């Protein structure tokens, strides 16, 4: 079986991914793309770096997608997360689902990206134009622990 969750070191191409969830019985398709945006908490972002623990991501990602397909009666579902250095506007993650009706497609797509962001071991390091940088959600709790 083709993997439904994967990690990619190269740019994500939405159109090619979309073709993998086409299904003649599906009436609705919803996709989410996460883009690197130029600001975070009022500061100007220069670039991001994503790092993934790939073996665990793929295993857990497949399980999440299988669960979503069952829970929301999907026809097809696919998700890919980028790693490496990404500039402003680049696509960091793509999640696409197709289902008979649109309601389930919206719910499933949002559920999947929430779970992917929350559960999977993928880290994000921000570098700002002022030269400062840090791992999101790591530096602050580290400071508290110190």
């Amino acid at each position, binding site marked *: 079986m083709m993997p439904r969750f994967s990690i990619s070191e190269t740019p994500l191409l939405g159109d090619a991914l979309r073709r993998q969830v086409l299904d003649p019985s599906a009436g609705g398709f919803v996709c989410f793309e996460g883009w690197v945006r130029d600001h975070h908490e009022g500061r100007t972002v220069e670039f991001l770096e994503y790092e*993934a623990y790939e073996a*665990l991501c793929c*295993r857990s990602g497949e399980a999440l997608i299988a669960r979503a397909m069952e829970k929301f009666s999907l026809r097809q579902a696919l998700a890919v997360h980028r790693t490496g250095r990404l500039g402003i506007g680049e696509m960091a993650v793509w999640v696409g689902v197709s289902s008979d009706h649109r309601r389930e497609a919206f719910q499933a797509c949002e559920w999947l990206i929430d779970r992917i*962001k929350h559960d999977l*071991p*993928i*880290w994000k390091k921000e570098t700002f134009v002022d030269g400062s940088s840090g*791992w999101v959600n*790591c530096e602050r709790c580290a400071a508290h*622990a110190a």
Partner: protein
Amino acid sequence: MNLSIAWFSILREQAGCSEESVETSAITASELYGQMRAKHRFTLAQGSLRVAINDEFAQWDDRLAPGDRVVFIAPVGGG
């Protein structure tokens, strides 16, 4: 026993390497993190981490076995 540990993100930077082989007396994942935190001077407390053993999420009091591959998982990007 001998174990391997893979380091990611902030822990990789603080450990100064991506992977290491360790000879340890630790019985549990929790004890192993305590030893590694002292060795590498990690800023993150165990309470903010998760742990995986052999590419599966594990519990902190799970017992380690020789040859296990352990990964300590710092807080992820989230939002």
